[in-house]
């Protein structure tokens, strides 16, 4: 097991010590600590991947949007490994732009639809597809609403109003000490990041980590008050998805995030539990402005790796790729 769990535990501990807590939280915490100790004692916490056999750190599937999405998640053990019966799920795609699928500025609605379907199959009590879009919300989410209409009218929402956010402090943050996060996300059991793979003029790429900025109310402050890269990593300390599914069906290789730019047809979906690893995989496997780049060249990926949020050294991780 990698040291992420330990890091997260310490993080929890830190925040836990700093605030008053209820009895219930205390018990929960104790049980977590107990589990961790037990895991450590049984050798489960060794820095090598000793998880269930055959489950790779990164699953990559090539094919049509829907099937590739399903296949990539199946490589990691299927949606049941992430969503338990009765749990509530928030899926965060990119739906900040009004463009069509070919513009590659938004996540492919078919990828999102497949994820919603899989969550439903896994027994999720409620699934929400949420983003805080830049352009008028109705125009942005139209295609997603359409794609998800077969489930429930109320799956897709664009939330921009302050009423839907709640301020939380970010323990262990270097710069972004607090921010307002979507209530839905805070109160749900599972967060799934489903970004489209695209370039970004100021952060190199916009993938799962950068995409978390779509779950907060005031993201412009991250640009001017703080160092953007550091602030992204800070934000990801509280917003760590349980599952990351990167839509590389089309990749906006240049001109991102808003386009227009070069769109590559890659027909690829990347899945991982580690947001840093997933992002690193996308950086290294696609071409950016006609060049091959390394994960460490994306500053927020590098910082996240250094701060133990996840791993960008994908060459040391297990990866599995299939064609569907």
């Amino acid at each position, binding site marked *: 097991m990698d040291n992420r769990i330990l890091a997260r535990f310490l993080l929890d501990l830190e925040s836990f010590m700093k605030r008053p807590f209820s009895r219930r939280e205390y018990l929960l915490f104790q049980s977590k600590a107990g589990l961790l100790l037990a895991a450590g004692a049984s050798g489960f916490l060794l820095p090598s991947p000793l998880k269930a056999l055959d489950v790779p750190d990164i699953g990559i599937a090539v094919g049509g949007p829907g099937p590739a999405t399903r296949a990539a998640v199946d490589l990691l053990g299927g949606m049941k490994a992430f969503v338990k019966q009765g749990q509530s799920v928030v899926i965060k795609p990119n739906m900040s732009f009004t463009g069509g699928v070919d*513009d590659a500025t938004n996540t492919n609605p078919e990828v999102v639809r497949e994820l919603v379907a899989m969550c439903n199959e896994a027994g999720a009590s409620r699934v929400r597809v949420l983003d805080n879009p830049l*352009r008028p919300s109705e125009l942005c989410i139209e295609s997603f609403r359409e794609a998800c209409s077969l489930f429930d009218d109320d799956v897709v929402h664009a939330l921009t109003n302050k009423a839907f956010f709640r301020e939380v402090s970010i323990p262990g943050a270097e710069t972004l000490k607090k921010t307002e996060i979507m209530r839905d996300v805070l109160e749900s059991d599972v967060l799934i990041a489903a970004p489209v793979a695209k370039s970004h003029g100021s952060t190199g790429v916009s993938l799962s980590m950068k995409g978390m900025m779509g779950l907060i109310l005031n993201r412009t402050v991250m640009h001017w008050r703080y160092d953007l890269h550091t602030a992204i990593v800070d934000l990801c300390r509280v917003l760590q998805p349980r599952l990351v599914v990167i839509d590389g069906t089309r990749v906006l290789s240049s001109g991102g995030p808003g386009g227009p730019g070069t769109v590559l047809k890659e027909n690829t979906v990347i899945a991982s539990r580690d947001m840093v690893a997933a992002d690193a995989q996308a950086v290294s496997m696609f071409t950016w*402005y006609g060049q091959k780049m390394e994960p460490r060249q*994306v500053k927020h990926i590098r910082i996240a790796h250094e701060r133990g949020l996840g791993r960008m050294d994908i060459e040391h991780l297990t990866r599995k790729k299939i064609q569907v």
Partner: protein
Amino acid sequence: MTVLKIARIISLLLFFILLFYATFPLVSLIPVDIFLRLDPLIFAVTLSGSRTVIPLLLPAVIILLLTLVLGRFFCSAICPLGTTIDIADRMIPQGNPEHDPGKKRARTHLVRVKYLLLIFLLAAAASGISLILVFSPMALATRLYGTLIMPVFFLVAGGALDLIRPLTWEFDITTLAYASIDVPRFALTWVTVLVTGAILGCALIAPRFWCRYLCPAGAIFAVFSRRPLIRRTVSEGCTRCGLCQELCPMDAIGEDPRDTVYSECSGCRVCAGVCPERVISFPLRGRTGKKAAQEFSAGRRGLLAAAGAGISAGLIARTDLGYRTGTDEPGEVHHPALIRPPGAIPENEFLLRCVRCGICMKACPTNTLQPTWFEAGLAGMMSPVIRPRRGPCEPPCAVCGHVCPTGAIRTLNPEEKICAKVGTAYILRHKCLAWEFDQPCLICEEVCPYGAIELRTVDGIPVTVPFVDEKKCTGCGYCEYYCPVQAGSAVVVEPMDEIRLSLGSYCETARERGFIFDEKDGLVRLPEDGHRDTKIPESDGGLPPGFTE
């Protein structure tokens, strides 16, 4: 409840509903600006000012023809401002002024004021300035309800939604749980408060004070109802008790209660209702009183003075610094914040046509349309401008032109809307996070719907910096709206190179001037613009933007 009361309630409700539906996307069976188009004052002043009959305003002519038959029925049955004044009259105690016949008589001469105002407004419009802003009853009502009362209503409704949200959330009433209301905010609300407050406050002096003495639209109706076909008639049996005289809201009953001043009578039938003898009726071609008493003529001298004042106002406006000759010569003072809505006709014509009703501002989905004060000179008070800091002008929306009752803002289809350039953005490098503070920001590039902002690498600056391609910029203001630099934005839209046409195609003009407006998100594209501009890396070996070594 009389037919008239029902008509009045329906009319006010319809007014509210249409105003509520004046929004983007525009969906309404009845034109949402129909009330404004019924106002004969708007018709007359824009006719006098622009010297053209505006077809949009022909409904006002129909109302005038009906007035020949029904008298000032508009004032009692339709006018939402009149109904509002009635409500205020009921709520504000009047200290029984109507019981003092002396005071009432002393006010009779005020009746002429509305005619003088009418002449003044028409003369001013003819000489080049529209001063209708505080005089058109429909414009006043629209501004009062659309930009003052509705925002407050939204604020309260939004608060109520927030209040019940714990419940809707808990019980999964999703539509309510995720409902939220963006409250519009408007500049110069105090002007509307003062003007409408004064009008309604006149209830302290007399009921329907505005309608009786001041309303220039009422003056036009009065001219058309000197002897309407359906008119008040008092049959035998009147005891001259004077009750009708005392209670007539329009003060339209003469010294002898059997006489009626038809030009003042709104046909509200209050007199018929209160008459203890039940001798008052409103038949077709009823008997006129002895003298069609006190039929008022404004007086030649007064009319000439009003006309003179109006012409002078126009002349003064032409010597105002903000007055525009309509050319681009040096010496034209064009205020940099005076960004007009897309489709606004050339400035001077625009100001003569715009009646300051504020319906465009009410309808604007991003709340960017705001009233301006002196930026357009004396003649431009309360006219609409785009305030990008408040909101961007949304590319697929052209609702302002669709709701404009006078055509001051033209009705544009989506393609023409994109071409109706309102200004050009430019970057204040000394404020820009990228240029001045080496911060990787570039939000402007991200949000620009037209791909008009380009990021380039510049020697000595570690991050890529934004440049505006003025040939692609429509002035929509997305960049200025989202610019994270506090207070003044580091990217600013000014009305440079705006396209203002009273006739003809914006897209053709845009093409002639070499503009390439390509809505990158694919909602609207210029017809011949099939190709996709792929701005690939002229990476002179350098890194792609945003990456590090």
